[in-house]
């Protein structure tokens, strides 16, 4: 069995309020369940409401995979209640920052510094463990297998594939497909283009034929040009990715914080009309907080 529940679908900053009630205002967090395991993808503010549902499972073991350490993907971590209760085991996985050399533990320990949070890391009662991942490293957790590929974002950002039996899902974290920094006609245009094609293949190979793709789709096609280089995808790029990889279901996430429920549905409909499905195509959905999907 493999199922998941969206606990946060918003990008950049939490956006509660009457206009985001339907799709939710929490930032990125996805609860993934297999028969035996609890795997959490990203620790945005959505991890707090998730943690409030976990008391019946104490003492529990859970595995948190961090796509990257931008705030909207880690901000809920200090409020992950199981960490405060003895007997629980929390394992946190993520990439390593090559500029500072720091591992994923920094995502938590920096937030728990005295000036930012009243409780120190040493005072957390649960058993905590940090695991730095290299690209393509395979992690076996009970009946699940998690592997990663480096995505393109202004930070080290891993996309994660979770497989269990013959079911699998892939979550991009934040991702913008790399674009050519040279103009056609520049000496290096062709070379760069080949690197991009190679990179695209390395990602598509990983995502190929998963049942579910959960993809950063922050922008509409019209908004994208003004946000090029910011590290997020558009409906155009996400739909192309889903088709290239031949996935069965595709969920758009990382909704813009200023987008109301009504506007979100409007841009989603417009995108579907603009890129009409072909026979045999995958289903597209808007990620919605609280929504559960069993594969």
């Amino acid at each position: 069995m493999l199922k998941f529940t969206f606990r946060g679908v918003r990008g950049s900053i939490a956006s509660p309020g009457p206009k985001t009630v339907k799709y939710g205002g929490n930032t990125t967090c996805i609860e993934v369940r297999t028969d035996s395991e609890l795997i959490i993808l990203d620790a945005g503010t959505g991890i707090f409401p998730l943690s409030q549902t976990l008391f019946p499972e104490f003492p529990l073991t859970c595995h948190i995979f961090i796509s990257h350490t931008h705030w909207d993907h880690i901000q809920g971590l200090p409020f992950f209640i199981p960490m405060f209760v003895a007997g629980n085991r929390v394992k946190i996985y993520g990439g390593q920052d090559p500029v500072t050399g720091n591992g994923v533990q920094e995502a938590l320990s920096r937030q728990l510094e005295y000036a930012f949070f009243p409780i120190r890391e040493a005072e957390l009662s649960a058993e905590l463990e940090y695991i730095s991942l290299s690209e393509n490293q395979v992690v076996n957790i009970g009946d699940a297998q998690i592997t990663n590929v480096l995505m393109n974002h202004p930070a080290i950002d891993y996309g994660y594939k979770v497989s269990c039996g013959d079911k699998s899902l892939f979550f991009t974290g934040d991702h913008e497909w790399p674009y050519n920094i040279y103009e056609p006609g520049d000496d290096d245009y062709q070379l760069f283009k080949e690197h991009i094609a190679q990179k695209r293949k390395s990602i598509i190979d990983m995502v190929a034929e998963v049942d579910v793709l959960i993809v950063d789709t922050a922008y509409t096609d019209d908004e994208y040009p003004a946000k090029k280089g910011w590290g997020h995808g558009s409906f155009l790029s996400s739909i192309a990715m889903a088709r290239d990889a031949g996935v069965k279901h595709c969920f758009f996430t990382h909704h813009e914080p200023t987008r109301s429920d009504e506007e979100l549905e409007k841009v989603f409909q417009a995108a579907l009309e603009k890129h009409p499905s072909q026979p045999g195509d995958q289903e597209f959905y808007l990620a919605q907080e609280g929504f559960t999907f069993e594969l």
Partner: protein
Amino acid sequence: MSDLHQQLVQMVDRMPAFSGSVNKILQMTSDIDCAPKDLVQVIEHDPVMMAKILKLVNSAYFGLSREITSIKHGVVFVGLNTIKNLAISIATMGMLPKAGPAGLDMNSFLLHSLGTASIAKLLGKRLGVMPDKTTDYFVGGLLHDIGKVVFAQFMPQEMERALKRVEVEEVSLSIAEMIEIGADHAQLGGMLAEKWQLPHTLVTCIKEHHSLEPNGGPNKVLDCVVAANIIVKQVGFGCAGNLIEDRLPDHVSARFGMELAELQESIGNLDEELEKANAFIRI
């Protein structure tokens, strides 16, 4: 020797890049609209920046499933912002003095490295390598003498004596370095490149660029770097403290099917290539 290597490996981690590129990086990156390709160009023209960034992207921090062979390759695989921040972190380490501590003129050294890079690329094209596959030729040429800067920076007295010896005794720099330091810049650079897990082709270009034999088997990139290194000195472009050689190693002339004079003649006027390198340094 192994003690010396250990020591140098540690010191090199703190080695700054060339002053021109450090200034340019700091200036460019304070502008949020700086063009990515301009940033890439600056990094690609500084052997220290280039080596250090290739080292980092090929290191365990990334544990990348593939070898990163150039800055452009790195930009696509680890992201522009990461490359940019790596460059900034190197730039904030300070800069190499313009007049090298050992009397190695850094501008001349850079010109020599850039000249070798450009000509190695040119020679690669002559051997039928597609223009978009000549990156290794350029990077190999740029990095081949990296060991010299390391000696000059960290063993200035020994290196100064070695340079003097080249002048007075007319021995090759490699021999002079062996006498004064116990290792030559090709060995040292090759050892560093290996330690840094740079792509194999680059390690070979650095380690074997003074070899008279085709050690490790035929190697097109290396042969081009060897020939380019000799040609650049012939035309008197830049200087990296070594004697001018007047012939190509046998296997290199066999590769091109001609001797040095003919090869040099056949690639025509190099002024344009060399002027490009010069212009870049002057900015």
